[in-house]
C-alpha cells in the first residue's frame, strides 16, 4: 500500500495530541524526577536544593530494599499463577463449542473491566479473617485442617493479584492460539504424535511467545498494582506503590515518595524493554 507524504497534513493531525502529551505528561514526569532530588523537613517542607539524599536513602535503607524485594516476589508469583492457569484455560476455551465459548469468554474476560476495588473487596470477603468463605470451603473439602491466614499476607495479595491479572494472560495466549493453523495439530497426529506430544512438542512452543508477552504484561501490572495490595495487604504489608502513596499522603515527604515512584517506573520500564527484546530475539527467526 502506497502511503502518502504530506508534512502539513501530518503535523496538523498530530499536533493537538502531541502538545497535550508534552504539556501534561512529559513536563509532570520531569518535575517528578526533579522533585526526587529535593530535600524535605518536618517543619521546612520541600526545599528546592539539589541533593541525592533521597536516592541514597532508598538504596541504602534495608526497609526500602525489603519492600522492593517483596514487590518483585509478589509480582513474580502472581505472574507464575496466571501463566500456569491462564494458558491451559485459553487452550480449553479454544477447543470449546463456540456457543459455550462466548459465554465463558464473557465470564473470564469480563472482570477485566470491573472495578478493581470491587473485585478486591470480594477477595477480602472471601479471606475475611479465620471464618472467611475461602477457609470454610477449603476446610469443607478437607484440603486443610486449620484456617490459613490470607488477609494481610503475601499469599493473599498474590492470589487476589493473580485473579485481577488473569484476563490479560488468557487474552494474550488466546491471541497466539488464534494465529495457529488448526491443521498443524492434525499434521502432528497423522505423523503419529499422541495428544500429550502434540501439546508439548507442537502447541506449547508455538504459543510460548503469547505466554511470555502475557507474562510481561502481568508482571508489569502486578509490580505497579496499588488498590489490591493496599486492601489485602493492609497498612503493614507494603509494596512499592503503597509505599510511595504513604510517603506522599501520610508522611507528606513528597521528595522521598517521588524517588520511590521514579525508581519503580525505571525498574518496570527496564524489565519490560529488556524482556520484550529477549522474547523478540529468541523468536525472531521463527515467527517474524
Amino acid at each position, binding site marked *: 500500500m502506497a502511503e502518502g507524504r504530506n508534512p502539513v497534513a501530518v503535523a496538523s493531525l498530530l499536533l493537538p495530541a502531541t502538545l497535550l502529551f508534552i504539556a501534561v505528561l512529559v513536563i509532570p514526569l520531569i518535575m517528578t524526577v526533579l522533585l526526587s532530588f529535593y530535600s524535605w523537613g518536618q517543619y521546612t517542607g520541600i526545599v528546592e536544593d539539589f541533593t541525592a539524599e533521597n536516592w541514597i536513602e532508598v538504596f541504602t535503607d534495608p526497609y526500602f530494599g525489603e519492600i522492593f524485594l517483596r514487590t518483585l516476589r509478589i509480582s513474580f508469583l502472581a505472574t507464575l499463577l496466571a501463566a500456569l492457569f491462564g494458558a491451559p484455560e485459553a487452550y480449553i476455551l479454544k477447543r470449546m463449542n463456540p456457543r459455550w465459548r462466548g459465554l465463558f469468554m464473557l465470564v473470564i474476560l469480563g472482570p477485566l473491566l470491573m472495578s478493581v476495588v470491587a473485585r478486591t473487596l470480594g477477595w477480602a470477603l472471601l479471606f475475611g479473617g479465620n471464618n472467611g468463605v475461602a477457609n470454610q470451603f477449603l476446610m469443607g473439602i478437607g484440603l486443610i485442617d486449620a484456617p490459613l491466614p490470607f488477609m494481610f499476607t503475601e499469599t493473599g495479595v498474590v492470589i487476589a493479584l493473580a485473579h485481577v491479572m488473569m484476563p490479560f494472560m488468557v487474552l494474550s495466549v488466546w491471541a497466539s492460539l488464534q494465529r495457529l493453523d488448526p491443521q498443524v495439530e492434525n499434521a502432528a497426529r*497423522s505423523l*503419529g*504424535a499422541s495428544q500429550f506430544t502434540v501439546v508439548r512438542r507442537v502447541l506449547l512452543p508455538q504459543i510460548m511467545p503469547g505466554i511470555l508477552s502475557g507474562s510481561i504484561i502481568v508482571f508489569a501490572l502486578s509490580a505497579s498494582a496499588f488498590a489490591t495490595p493496599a486492601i489485602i495487604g493492609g497498612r503493614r504489608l507494603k509494596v512499592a506503590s503503597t509505599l510511595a502513596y504513604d510517603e506522599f499522603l501520610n508522611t507528606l515527604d513528597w521528595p522521598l515518595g517521588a524517588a520511590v515512584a521514579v525508581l519503580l517506573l525505571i525498574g518496570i520500564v527496564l524489565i519490560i524493554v529488556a524482556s520484550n527484546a529477549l522474547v523478540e530475539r529468541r523468536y525472531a527467526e521463527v515467527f517474524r
Partner: protein
Amino acid sequence: MSFLELSDLRKTYGNVVALENFNLSVEKGEFISLLGPSGCGKTTTLQMIAGFTEPTSGRIVLGGRDLVSMPPAKRGLGIVFQSYALFPHLTAAENVAFGLEMRGIDRASREERVREALAMVGLKGYEDRYPRRMSGGQQQRVAVARALVIRPEILLLDEPLSNLDAKMREEMQSELLSIQRRLGTTTILVTHDQQEAMALSNRVVVMSKGRIEQIATPVEAYNNPASSFVASFLGKTNTLSGEIRGGTLVVGEFRAAVSGADGPVAVTLRPEKMRFDSTGLRGTVTARVFQGNCWSYQVQTAQGEVLVLRQNDGQPLPVEGDAVFLSWSPADMGLRREGLSHG
C-alpha cells in the same frame, strides 16, 4: 479385495449431507483424484480417511484392516495439507524428522532418511531453514517430504498446489508425479482443478453435491462423461439437440448414421472435435480469438452458440462473418436421452 475400500460412506453435519453413497476401491500404487467444485465433499472424504472426521456411517478398510476405529496417529498415512501445516517452530529437517521420531527411529537412520527425503524434493541445503523463511513452493516440498518420509501406506493430498502460482504449480505437478511413480505410493489427491486431476491421476472421481458422478480414467471421463455435470466440469462442451430418425442422427443440417431408437437426443461435443467442412450444421462465425497454439471460434447456429477450437497449423481458417458448416466424426460425440433441458 482392493488395497483401500471405502464403502457406503456417509457424513452429515446436522441437516447438511456432506457426503453419501460413497463407494470407491483403490488399488495399490494407484494415483486417484477426487475432483469437484468447492463444497462437494472432497475434504470431508479425505479427512475421514485420515481420521480427523468420523463418518456418520460406512466402512473404510485398508489392507484388510478397519480404519474407522483407529486413531489418526496409528493409521500410518502421509498427509499434505492445503495450508501445508508445517511446524513453524521447527526447521525443515526437524519438520521432516518429526514423524520418524514418533516412530522411535534412532538418530542416525533418522538423519539419513531426512536427508534423503529433502534431497528427493530438491531441498538439499535447506535443512536448517525455518518455514517462515521459505517460499510457498519450498514449504510445499517440505510438506511432501514430511509426509513421505514415514513411508506411508497412502499419501493424501488436499488441494496441495492451490496456493502456488501457475508456473510453480506445473513444476510441482510433474515433480509430484515423478516422485509418486518412483516410490509407487498409493496416492489420493483432492483438487477442484480438472487439468491437474487429469494430468496426474490414473483415475478421477468426479464429485458433485456430496455424490460421486463418475469414476473413470481421465481419458474415459473426458470422452464419455457419465452426466452433463461431468461433461461441463471436465472442460468446455457443446450440447446440441438432435433427433434420431430411422438410424440417422439429425442435428440441423448435419446427418450421421447411428444406432438407437427414434426420438430426441442431446449431443455433446468437445470444441476441439468439431471442424469446418463443406457440409454439416450451418452457422456464421461471430467472433474468433487467437490463443497461440489454436483459434477459438464462436459460431452462431440455429441450435444456439457453438464453440469450436481449431489448431493453428497454417491451414486457412474462416474469419468473422464467414458462413461455415460444422461437422464431426460420430465417434467423438456423446449421445444422451436425458439432459435435453441442459442444452
